[in-house]
């Protein structure tokens, strides 16, 4: 009986590693959060396997019997569309002996047959065959048991973004996403049909560092000039040679430059910037007809925001980066010091060929371990992970930019988008506030505390 009590003690201790005292402008994260295997275990169990996580786009499985496989925390799952177009998210483990039922990344199958003893399931997860059942000398109770694949506790979708939860104790998806939806909309509504698709060609990579380095980096505008100095040099040189002019857009002079962020409930946040001179073009701005159609569809204010850099984090496992291209990236923690990333080029359905080609080139240019910018981030995470081993150095000072000025001057921006964020920040283009990390860490702490309260 000692073990659960020790576990509860650990969870309270783990939750306290996020030291959040807003009234004192104190926000600090103990280094253990990044390096301790016990913290990793707690995160997997009580965050990734206990709240809504993004699992895929509806458009990735467009036809009946299409499927893809992914993970929710440690759990392998099968996302499958059945005959009636209903999408199920099923634990990808045979009811008979636990074997991975579907070993493929994606495809189209009416039947998923386990390769071990050929128990078979349809595209809705219903068991349709237990071979040699009659001669199996099964006990009476066997016939009364359900043999279907297990559905995850909750499944929901927002405009094609599918989320699943292994715990039923979560808010409705609509409430979970809350006003962060406005920033998904800014990507989705770039499509004339209101649908997004991933461009074929998935890229997956790992880094030897904690997943929260990626979480933070996606909201960190401050690092750009230093970490990506070599990429900025390339962009400047291209601009001077005018080798790439497609898609460059201008803000109205009256807009005023700046860099800001909004934080929402349940851990979501977005950072954004308004710059008079951009160093890269965008597919939407590369085609005057496309741009005009978007303006008439959603209005000039929202198109203005579509053309601004926006890095959206949907806690705990999704970032949608909309810059020179759009990236859909998810992560899966493999250990305290190892993370697996999956990245897709995200695109509006119905995009003209030239804009699509520009989107793909820009995506390859910036993102992924083969790109000229994300590769620097990945290596930087590994440098951080190494540095975090210096336990005696105590707390880092990495959460304080913007701590004194939260909420300044963003009312106009929020109003344009019709959102009222839980917190907002705004400053000069060089601001790079760090307070937009807080929402995620507060949700992180809430979920660990919730688990601590439940532990027996």
């Amino acid at each position, binding site marked *: 009986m000692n073990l659960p009590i020790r576990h509860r003690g650990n969870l309270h201790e783990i939750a306290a590693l996020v030291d959040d005292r807003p009234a004192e402008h104190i926000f600090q994260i103990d280094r253990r959060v990044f390096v301790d295997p016990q913290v990793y275990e707690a995160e997997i169990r009580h965050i990734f396997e206990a709240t809504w996580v993004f699992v895929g786009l509806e458009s990735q499985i467009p036809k009946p019997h299409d499927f893809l496989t992914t993970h929710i925390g440690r759990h392998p799952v099968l996302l499958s569309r059945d005959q009636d177009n209903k999408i199920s998210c099923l634990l990808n483990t045979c009811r008979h002996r636990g074997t991975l039922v579907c070993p493929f990344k994606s495809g189209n199958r009416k039947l998923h047959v386990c390769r071990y003893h050929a128990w078979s399931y349809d595209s809705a997860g219903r068991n349709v065959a237990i071979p040699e059942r009659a001669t199996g000398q099964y006990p009476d109770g066997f016939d009364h048991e359900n043999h279907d694949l297990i559905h995850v506790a909750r499944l929901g979708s927002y405009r094609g973004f599918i989320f699943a939860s292994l715990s039923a104790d979560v808010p409705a998806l609509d409430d979970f996403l809350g006003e962060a939806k406005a920033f998904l909309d800014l990507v989705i509504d770039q499509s004339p049909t209101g649908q997004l698709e991933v461009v074929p060609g998935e890229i997956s990579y790992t880094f030897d560092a904690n997943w929260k380095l990626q979480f933070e980096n996606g909201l960190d505008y401050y690092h750009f000039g230093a970490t990506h100095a070599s990429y900025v040099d390339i962009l400047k040189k291209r601009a001077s040679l005018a080798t790439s002019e497609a898609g460059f857009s201008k803000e109205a002079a009256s807009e005023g430059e700046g860099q800001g962020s909004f934080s929402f409930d349940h851990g979501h946040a977005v950072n954004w910037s308004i710059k008079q001179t951009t160093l890269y073009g965008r597919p939407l701005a590369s085609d005057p007809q496309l741009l005009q159609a978007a303006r008439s569809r959603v209005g000039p204010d929202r198109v203005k925001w579509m053309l601004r850099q926006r890095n959206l984090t949907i806690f705990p496992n999704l970032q949608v980066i909309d810059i020179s291209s759009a990236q859909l990236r998810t992560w899966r923690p493999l250990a305290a010091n190892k993370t697996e990333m999956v990245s897709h080029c995200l695109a509006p359905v119905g995009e003209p060929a030239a804009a699509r080609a520009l989107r793909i080139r820009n995506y390859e240019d910036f993102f992924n371990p*083969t790109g000229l910018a994300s*590769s620097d981030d990945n290596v930087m995470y590994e440098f951080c992970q190494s540095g975090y081993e210096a336990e005696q150095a105590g707390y880092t000072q990495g959460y304080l930019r913007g701590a004194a000025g939260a909420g300044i001057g963003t009312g106009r921006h929020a109003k344009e988008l019709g959102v009222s964020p839980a917190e907002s920040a705004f400053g000069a283009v060089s601001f790079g506030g760090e307070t937009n990390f807080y929402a995620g860490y507060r949700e992180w702490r809430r979920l660990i505390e919730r688990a601590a309260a439940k532990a027996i």
Partner: protein
Amino acid sequence: MTELEQAAAFLFREARHLDMHEWDAWVAMYRKDAVYWLPAWRDEYQTTTDPQTEVSMIFHNTRLGLEERIARIESRKSITALPLPRTLHQIGNVELRAASPAQIETEATFAVHVYDPRTAKEHTRFGRYQHVISREQETWLIAKKKIILVNDKVPAVLDFYSI
């Protein structure tokens, strides 16, 4: 030397330039309008086939893309090259797939051993090279290089020197 031997020697020279960080000599082996293409994988079996509608890991349709990559790691501003990993290219199974007075096409396998002197971690990238080499008077220049990377789950960073 036979044509096959000449082709193999050309591929070995390209590999040596990369391993020895002789970037100028390496990039000089490419035509200005060279295509350098590392497709992504569409699924377990097939790579992407059309760079205009599908994602590649790297796609450059001029030499400038390679020159930018060289400038980036030479700038001492990219952490991916601080320090630069040591590499060792091994090329095998060189075949001449086509030969005409204007160009030759080769296919070969590669294994690149990558060692990070900072962490002492090492990994190997392996796959196939498909070269289209144009004969320009006395010199040969790469018109197109397609690289099929077999193990495409990349540890943190992958650049032109590690494939």
